[in-house]
Structures are given as C-alpha cells and as structure tokens.
C-alpha cells in the first residue's frame, strides 16, 4: 500500500495569500500528514497581493511578487487547480464541486476565499474603464489604460488601497485624482494632521485629492467612461475609474453549503467553522465579530489553523492592527487607538525640516496607539510595546524620539543620561551634531547661552526638538555658570515659537492652512488649543485674504455668531450707526425689533450706537433680518476688528467746528468696516481741539484743526488709561483716510493676536510706525494691501446668515429630547 493512501485529504479553496500560507504552516508542522489540493480562481500561481501596488507603480514585476512558484506545488505534491472556480461544497458527502463537474473529496477543508471589492451602486458602473483594484487582471487593465497619452484617472476612495492605486497610476504618467467621501484621507488610520501631510505628499507626487466628495454618477460616451459626476455638480473627467471603497468577505460558497455565515464565515479560535471538518482563514473569515482586510491577522490565523489541523488546538485571539502605506518616499504608519479617546494622553512630535509628524497615545501608562508620518522607523517598536502591553511610564519622556534614544537613555534621569552619553552620541539629528562637538564648542569658545551654541554648532537650530538635550549639555558643561535662557514668549503651550516667528513663517513659507502652520512650526499638540487657534486663524486670514477660508471652529463664540454672549447665555445685538448718526426710520425699526422679540434691555453704548440686550440665540437671524430690512448692518461690536467711529457734529453744526468731522467719521467707518484685526479697534473724529469725540483715547483718532487733520494713535481707555500720541499731521481728508488705512494695515500685519494698538505701538515704537505710514511708497503699499483685503471683508455677516449661511449654528440639533420620559 502506498503511503499516499493513508494520508488524509486536505482541500483548500483559495490560492491566495491565506490559503497558501495555511498550507505552508501545516507543512511546517507535519509535512507528511495530508494529500493537498488547492483550488484557485485565478489562472496563476500564488502571489503577494499586497505587492500589487508596487507592480502597478512599475516598481516591481509580477515575477518579483510570486510567493510560491510552480516548483513549490510540485515539491510538496500539491495539486493546483488554477483557474478552476469551485461551484459548491457538499458538507455531507465531504466533497468539493468545481467548474466542469470536477469533484474532489476531502477529509479536511480550508476556505480561504478572500474578499471581493465593494462596488458602489452608481449609475454607469458597467461602463468600460471602470475597474476595482483587487487582482493582477485589474492591475493589467489599469496599466493598459495608462498607456494612452494624456489619460486621466479618478479613484473613488481615499483609503489605503485607493491611494496606492492613484499613486501607481500617477507613476505610470496618468493625471490621478482621488475623491474621498470623508474630510481626512485614510480616516480609519490617520488623524487630521497626518491626513493633511499625506495630501501634500501625494500632491507632490502628482495625485490630486478631492475631499468631502459624494459620487453621484459615472458618466460615459459609447459605453466608455468619460468622467465622474459629484453631487455638487462637478464632473471630473477621466478615462479610467478605479473603485477602491472597501472589501466584503467572499462567503457565498460557505453560505450556500449551509455553514454559519454572518458578515464572513464564522470561525472559533481554532479557525473551525460550524462544520468541524471545515476551517476558514483570511479575509473571508469572521472571528469574534471581526473581519480583517490586512495581512498580519491572516498570518496569525494561519498559525492557529495549522495548530488545529495537526493535532493541536489553535487559540487565535484576534489581532491588533497596524497599517503601512506603500507609496515610495511617504512613510505612513498607524496602529491601535491612534486618535486617543477617553482617559488617553497624547505625545506629539513634529519635525518640519523632515516633514515628520508622530503621535503616540498612552492610556493607563501603556501605549495604545500611534500615528507616524514621514518617519515610521519606530512603528514596529511602538507596535510591539502596544501588543505586549508594556508599561511605558518610565520611558515616557523619550518615547516619542524612538527606540534608539529611549533605550540609550533608559533608567537614567535626564541629567545623568546626558552625562552618561558618549561624546560620539548624536544630539541634533537635523544637523548631525554630536555631544562632543557641543561640549568642545562650549569650552573652547566660551559659549554660555543656547543661542551661542545654536549659532556656533547648529545644534537645535533646525527643528528645535533637541533643545532640552542641548540645554542639558550646556548645564553640565557650565555647571553653576549656566543661566536658563529667557527668550521671546511662545504663543501658547502648543509651540515654542513666539507670535512674530509664526507670522513670518506664514508669509515666508507660504503656509496657507492651519495644519500647514502647525506642521511647519512643529506644534506639540494634534490640533492646537483655544488660545493658538483663533490667533492662527487671524494670521492666515490677514496674510491670505483671497485664499484662506475662515475656520469657524477657531473663532470665539461672539465672532462665530456675530453677537456678544452675555452672562445668561443670551446675546446682545448692536447695529452699525455710521459715525454715530441715525434716523427716525432706523430708530423705529430698532424699537419694533425690541417689541417683536421681547428684548428685555435697550441701551445706548459708549460708541454712539444702540445695544439690544438679552436676545435668544435662536432669534438672532430673525432679529438681523428685520434690522437688515431697515438698512442696518452688523456693528461688529463683538469683533477683533473695526468697532465704532465716534464723531462730534463738527463744522455742520458746531460753532467751533473746523472740519466736517461727522462726514470724515462716516467715510472712515464705511471704508474700514468688516476688517479683522489682532484686537478691537476703535476710532473717533473730533471737529476741533476741544475734542468732544474723545479722539485722544482711541486706537486711532483724528483731531481736526484749521490747517487740516492731526492723526493720533495708541490711546486706551479701558483696563489701561492712556492718551494717544500724534502720528502725523495732514492737510486733506483724503490723506487722513490713506494714513489711517495704512496704519490699520500695519497693525493688522505686525500686531500679535489680542495685542491692542497701544501695546503694539509700545513694542515696535511710534517712530517705526511713523516712518512707514509717512513714506509715500510704503504707505501706498500698505494702503493697497488693506484695500485688497477689504474686498473680501466688507460683507455684512448678518445678511449672510439671514440668507441661510451657517443655519445650523442657530438651531438646536434636536428638540426630540422634549419627548423623553422624565
């Protein structure tokens, strides 16, 4: 009797990565136990499906990614039925039925049928040129499509697979655009900061991304795809449309056979299905409610399965997932609870020079998640720490710098650790400066400050992340002579950069979004705080008035809802009264509004206008609508921007008036209104030196005199009382407007967020401001920039909201709780 006859018969359905790995694991444990047959639907040997992306990109060939060639099947006496689709499984009769009526009996059966790509049920799905990204046939179709000169591709789905497909197509010379439903790429693996960096990196590699895009229809001509239509009406032209929106377990065969199937084929920890002779592994399997689409869990499952099939009992307990993106030159790693959660703590590290963003998440002293962008070297180390549940409290301080630094310094306090470092240890990774060079620079050149060390050795001069280490070295070398450096105050706890450095960087480095600033300036938090976000929002708005889109979520409530919040959560509403002038009609409209909405208090303000106090938030748009109807617009009484221009009656009425102060005030207000500034800006125009409009305690003031106009700056009458300084004297009303607009723009560009004009003036000096606004060329440039910015700012926010903008802000999300049982 031949040996084969005593062997059990093992049939594997699926010649993919899971099926073959399962067989390898079984052979490793007991090479002689089974007679093995493998069915594969694709007419080829087993290959590494994960590596299809590099094949598409032309970075690898099919031969490179073959895992098991024909020799492997022959050497292990495996019968391969390639290109033979299995049509049924007879559990009772323990046999597999394939195309053409072929029947193969088994003692043990492994289902490794994998998954199918999910196809969105869009009109036009059957057009030629619409493909998924799953197997070599798809890749070949994509490569063929990319051959056409000038061909464009659209990829639906900004997940791992979609991005790799788009990158591969771009490498093949196609213009590739990814459309993604969500507002963050790979949102299941990346947080917003990493997602932003990824978009930038892809754009550099020729892949455009369209976020928040709802696909509506695939359009075509003569049966061939020509574009993708989005819900917002845009049509993205394309010759190839790749659908990469996810996968679904391929469990049809198992279901038809009568096995227990949920989303996937349900298996226990031994990978056994509801029939004890049948096992399932890979993407078709569902274990403890989870279906996996990544390779690491498949390897884990195969080990457990092989255990079960060779007299043991596998004990697969599910997998902790990690992901790496395979786009050349873009290192992306994600694992675990990368976005944190309740009770979690974030550690963030950014290196703008190298385009690195790292975030690790700690919970109960253990590492529970991580996102790495730009440098994923330590991904595996973090992943190991996560899976092992290692306590990381002791290495918390250096954890984010990675394994090499952490293990180099383990168990030492920072001082001792630095002391113990060999002279050859690199301290500054950006500039390649080791400890020895720093120490010798300090001793030989008599350096005493961090700035000295920076200037001489370049250590900590780039990303600054090694600043604490350099300081330690300085401290150790100098001993008692060391004095901690007092530099400019950082903007907030999220950054070590002061306001001015951030503002300069925004302009110098063309930073046009908040994530771009946070990355370039190495913010230590994922998304800033309530102190830096409004500041950055303003700086960006000021620097790029035409391009930057105001971030509502970074606005303080008053600026978000264009009214002033009061202690009881109601709001006050102040319509503009240009130069303090009003009319009976306006007053009637205000009175009507107060009656109609039962507004409890009406008060005259110090800025010559009327304040309606106690308006309910939900009523705001209706209140504004009525005021708008009477010709009134927002008074911006809530804004870090132009508030009021107070005037006296001037030469129109007053016997002492030298000029038309009311007219000038109105002109200034109509010119400056709507502009945002670092802090509130109040103006006044007095018609004579008696100064009834109190112009000499305003941010900008004009005192009219016989010979013209005295322009004042830097007054305050709040927390601090301070008289203005004279900025300049001009002869005409036109010049007055030019000077004030230029001074306003200068303040907008130089002021730190929340820094009032008088504080800005104290910091930069009156002379510096005078020099700029009196030099005709500089003044003209400032004036022009202000005028340009006003093109986008002089819009009544009330009217916009009456017309429905940000409707959701003024209505509760739901009132359904009213019906809840008490």
């Amino acid at each position, binding site marked *: 009797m031949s040996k084969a006859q005593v062997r059990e018969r093992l049939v594997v359905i699926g010649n993919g990565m899971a099926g073959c790995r399962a067989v390898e694991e079984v052979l490793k444990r007991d090479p002689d136990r089974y007679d093995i047959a493998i069915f594969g639907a694709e007419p080829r040997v087993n290959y590494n499906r994960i590596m299809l992306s590099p094949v598409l990109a032309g970075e690898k060939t099919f031969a490179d990614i073959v895992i098991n060639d024909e020799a492997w099947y022959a050497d292990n006496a495996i019968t391969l039925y390639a290109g033979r689709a299995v049509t049924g499984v007879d559990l009772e009769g323990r046999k597999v039925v394939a195309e053409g009526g072929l029947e193969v009996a088994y003692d043990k059966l492994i289902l490794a049928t994998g998954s199918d790509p999910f196809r969105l049920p869009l009109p036009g799905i059957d057009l030629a040129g619409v493909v998924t990204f799953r197997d070599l046939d798809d890749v070949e179709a994509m490569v063929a499509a990319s051959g056409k000169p000038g061909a464009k591709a659209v990829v639906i789905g900004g997940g791992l697979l979609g991005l790799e497909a788009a990158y591969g197509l771009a490498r093949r010379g196609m213009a590739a655009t990814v459309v993604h439903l969500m*507002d963050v790429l790979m*949102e299941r693996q990346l*947080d*917003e900061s990493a997602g932003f960096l990824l978009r930038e990196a892809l754009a550099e590699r020729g892949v455009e991304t369209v976020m928040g895009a709802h696909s509506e229809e695939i359009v075509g001509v003569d049966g061939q795809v020509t574009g993708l239509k989005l819900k917002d009406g845009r049509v993205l032209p394309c010759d190839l449309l790749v659908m990469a929106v996810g996968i679904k377990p391929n469990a049809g065969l198992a279901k038809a056979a009568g096995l227990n199937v949920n989303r996937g084929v349900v298996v226990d920890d031994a990978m056994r299905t509801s029939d004890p002779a049948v096992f399932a592994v890979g993407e078709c399997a569902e274990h403890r409610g989870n279906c996996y689409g990544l390779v690491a869990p498949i390897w884990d499952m195969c080990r457990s399965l092989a255990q079960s099939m060779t007299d043991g009992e596998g004990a697969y307990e599910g997998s902790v997932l990690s992901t790496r993106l395979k786009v050349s030159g873009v290192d992306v790693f994600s694992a675990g609870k990368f*976005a*944190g*959660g*309740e*009770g979690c703590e*974030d550690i963030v590290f950014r290196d703008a020079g190298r385009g690195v963003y790292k975030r690790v998440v700690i919970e109960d002293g253990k590492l529970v998640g991580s996102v790495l962008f730009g440098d994923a070297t330590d991904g595996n180390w973090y992943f190991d720490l996560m899976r092992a549940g290692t306590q990381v409290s002791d290495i918390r301080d250096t954890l984010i710098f990675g394994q090499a630094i952490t293990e180099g310094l383990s168990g030492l306090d920072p001082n001792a650790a630095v002391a113990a470092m060999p002279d050859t240890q690199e301290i500054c990774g950006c500039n390649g400066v080791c400890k020895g060079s720093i120490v010798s620079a300090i001793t030989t050149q008599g350096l005493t400050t961090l700035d000295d060390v920076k200037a001489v050795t370049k250590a900590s001069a780039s990303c600054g992340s090694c600043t604490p280490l350099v300081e330690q070295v300085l401290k150790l070398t100098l001993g008692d002579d060391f004095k901690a450096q007092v530099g400019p105050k950082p903007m907030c706890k999220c950054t070590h950069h002061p306001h001015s450095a951030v503002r300069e960087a925004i302009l110098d480095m063309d930073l046009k979004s908040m994530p771009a600033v946070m990355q370039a300036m190495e913010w230590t*938090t*994922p*998304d*800033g*705080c*309530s102190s830096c*976000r*409004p500041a950055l929002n303003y700086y960006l708005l000021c620097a790029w008035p035409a391009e930057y889109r105001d971030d*509502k*979520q*970074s*606005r*303080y*409530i*008053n600026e*978000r*809802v264009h009214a002033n*919040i009061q*202690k*009881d*959560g109601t709001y006050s509403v102040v319509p503009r009264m240009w130069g303090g002038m009003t009319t009976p009609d306006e007053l009637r409209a205000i009175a009507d509004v107060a009656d109609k909405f039962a507004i409890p208090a009406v008060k005259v303000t110090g800025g010559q206008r009327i304040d309606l106090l106690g308006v309910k938030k939900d009523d705001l748009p209706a209140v504004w609508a009525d005021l708008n109807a009477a010709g009134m617009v927002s008074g911006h009484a809530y804004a870090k921007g132009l508030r009021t221009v107070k005037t006296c009656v001037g030469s129109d009425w007053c016997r002492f008036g030298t000029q038309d102060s009311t007219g000038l005030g109105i002109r200034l207000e109509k010119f400056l209104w709507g502009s945002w500034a670092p802090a509130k800006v109040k103006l006044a125009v007095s018609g004579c030196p008696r100064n009834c409009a109190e112009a000499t305690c305003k941010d900008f003031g004009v005192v009219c005199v016989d010979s013209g106009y005295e322009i004042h700056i830097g007054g305050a009458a709040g927390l601090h009382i301070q008289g203005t300084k004279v900025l300049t004297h001009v002869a005409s009303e036109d010049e007055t407007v030019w000077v004030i607009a230029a001074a306003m723009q200068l303040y907008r560009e130089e002021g730190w967020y929340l820094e009032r004009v008088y504080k800005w003036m104290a910091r930069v000096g009156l002379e510096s401001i005078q020099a700029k606004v009196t030099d005709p060329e500089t003044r003209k440039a400032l004036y022009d920039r202000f005028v340009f910015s006003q093109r986008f700012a002089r819009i009544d926010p009330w009217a916009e909201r009456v017309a429905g903008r940000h409707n*959701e802000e003024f209505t*509760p*999300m*739901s*009132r*359904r*709780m*009213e*019906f*809840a*049982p*008490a």
Partner: protein
Amino acid sequence: MNAPVKSPIWIDVGAVTDIPRRGARRVTSPRGDIAIFRTGDGEVFALMDACPHKGGPLSQGIVHGRAVACPLHNWSIDLASGEPMGADKGKGCTPVVPLEVRDGRLLLSLATAVV
C-alpha cells in the same frame, strides 16, 4: 423597597456628521440644554450645557483636543468627565450625559442623565 430598575431609553438626536469637527451642537431637553461635542479626531461627547463655574453654555465654546473652553470665562472643561482642567481642577463638575453612537447616529439617554 427596591426602586424599579430603569433601562435607559435611547433617543436618536441626529447624525455624528451634523456636528462640525471641533464644534458642538445643542439639544433641548426638559432638564435643560445638552451639548454634544465632536473633536478634531471625530470623537463625540455629551455634557449638560452648563459650565460648573457660572453656568456658561459650553456648546458655544471652542473645542480643542478633548476639552472645551467655556465662552464666558475660558475655563477648560474635560469633555469626557465634565471636570474643569488646569488651575480650576476640582471646582465642580458638569454632568455627563450618556451618549452612544450607532451606525453614525447619536443616541442620548436622559433616564440616568442627572442624579
């Protein structure tokens, strides 16, 4: 006598995506307004819409990290616990409202909301 055990009744108040990232929305209830927050990372939290300091409407504050800055006096409130953070730690607490997310929908429960 044992009080009857109430199982919470969940009420669908909207979709997660109805709340902007780093933003909040209000839900009215017989026990006062409830604030639902969504962080930059997409997590959602529900608290009664009143700061433990002076009752400021937290739904109107700036959401940063897993905290909200009260619009009245800039106290930072931990969204998960309702407790003030930093210098104001230990000074009262805003009640947390039970919140569940199912299939992208937000479900609130009042049965156990306020003790």
